[in-house]
């Protein structure tokens, strides 16, 4: 999206040339006796789609939650469009950065209608024209106006995830943080949601940070990715390098091999990376 188009839509000023939309440096996250993230750093350009992959416990979701402001126990630096973030996020942050969670069953209030789910962020941010905005965003995520007054239990898993995406999108953010957005969906529904996200990114010039354990999903959705293990980013590579089977690190190569399906010999050769 051009700067002019962005200003017309009342969005924030464009970034200076070369300035990343999102940058984390020396990020550490500690829980009681667990050092979950140990010095992670990465930068995501405006309009880029960046993947973070890793196995369970690697710290990938914790990084995303720290960026989203959902986890106060972090140290290091997080900058969004050049602005340094503190423990508490101002309202302007949430206008700019929105998140979509893995479980569409858990992330929607069971007794709120779709209309209420979508109205709330608008009210919080004092945005006008709620009527049109809700209708528009529902159309954008492929749900007709008929869905507006339904409750979550009246929706399928894929439809719920569309509502969760609509809720994120209705504030017209620049950055979407996606935490395993399709991991609890059927393969055919996953394809629909991934296509929807890709289309929305193209149309709105969105920046994505996508956390997933699924390398194929990252390869399809992202330009670059970070591979995490034991709280550290072990490697950053382009999706082209991934597709060409050219990761530099042994850990990434093993992860890639295991993602390609069952292989008796590979199973025997698996190593533990501590």
């Amino acid at each position: 999206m051009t700067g002019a188009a962005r200003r017309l839509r009342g969005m924030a000023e464009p970034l200076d040339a070369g300035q990343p939309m999102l940058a984390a440096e020396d990020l550490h996250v500690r829980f009681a006796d667990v050092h979950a993230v140990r010095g992670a750093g990465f930068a995501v350009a405006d309009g880029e789609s960046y993947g973070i992959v890793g196995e369970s416990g690697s710290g990938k979701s914790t990084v995303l939650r720290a960026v989203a402001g959902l986890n106060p126990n972090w140290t290091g630096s997080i900058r969004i469009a050049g602005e340094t973030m503190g423990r508490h996020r101002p309202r302007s942050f949430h206008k700019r950065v929105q998140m979509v969670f893995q479980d569409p069953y858990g992330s929607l209030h069971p007794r709120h209608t779709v209309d209420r789910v979508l109205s709330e962020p608008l009210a919080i941010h004092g945005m006008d024209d709620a009527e049109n905005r809700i209708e528009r965003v529902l159309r954008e995520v492929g749900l007709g106006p008929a869905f507006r007054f339904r409750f979550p239990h009246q929706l399928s898993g894929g439809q719920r995830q569309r509502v969760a995406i609509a809720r994120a999108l209705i504030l017209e953010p620049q950055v979407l943080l996606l935490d395993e957005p399709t991991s609890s969906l059927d393969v055919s529904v996953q394809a629909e949601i991934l296509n929807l996200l890709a289309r929305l990114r193209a149309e709105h010039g969105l920046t994505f940070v996508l956390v997933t354990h699924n390398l194929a999903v990252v390869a399809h959705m992202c330009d670059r990715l970070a591979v995490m293990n034991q709280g550290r980013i072990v490697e950053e590579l382009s999706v082209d390098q991934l597709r060409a089977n050219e990761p530099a690190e042994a850990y990434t190569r093993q992860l890639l091999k295991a993602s390609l399906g069952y292989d008796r010999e590979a199973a025997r050769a698996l190593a533990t990376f501590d």
Partner: protein
Amino acid sequence: MTGAKPLLEVEDLRVEFETRVGLVRAVRGVSFTVGREKVGIVGESGSGKSQTGRAILRLTPQPGRVTAKKLDFDGIDLLKADERTMRDIRGKRIAMVLQDPKFSLNPVMSVGKQIAEAYRAHGGVGAKEAERKALEMLAAVKMRDPERVYRAYPNELSGGMGQRAMIAMMLGTEPDLLIADEPTSALDVTVQMQVLAILDDLVTQRGMGLIFVSHDLNLVASFCDRVLVMYAGRIVEQLRASELSQAQHPYTQGLLAALPRIDRPVAELQVLKRDPAWLGEGA
């Protein structure tokens, strides 16, 4: 077991539920056999793949009704078997690993005790031997610290560890047939690979039969010998796993095309267009 007779024969299996909104036909006339091999059942949620697995063990929840022309396990008619016979079969001769360890393990008993209990009940071993074997099996499913896991309660384990504990419990009783319902979908890919290798060994070395229920078409294609593809309660296609890429049924083809692949980039994923004709008669 005798010669070439399959371990399990299923003919025209139907599972139906009487509900408030009418009769739900979860499984609608499914026929297949399982020998000492790895048979994958793939399908999306609601395809009836899990209910097929449960019906074999007569674990269909109330008010479900199971009928079949034939449901034979190693010469035993499972439809007519009394509860005592079924208890002898369940866990010992046919074991099942369910998807979610959270609901399958007893929350107020240590994991090791539960595993040892299964061995004592089905394997006829004493307490000491059961404990030794439990630790051995926990190591076999690649637990880093089997002693700790033995003493731990289910809530102290991650999902992946709980799942491996379930698998350890089933493996120790050395069943003839294992029905594994999404046994690895909660696991990391590398752990998944290790667990599959254990199952693979049991089939190829001990001659166990395996029914592997999964939504993951690629995994099933690379792991199993044969694949049954289920849609809306019916098997729409049966084929050798190695020939999955030449699948004929549009549903199978659609599922394959909907999957993003590392080795085959596409601009846009194909979306499955469901054809009412796939439902067949009586839907």
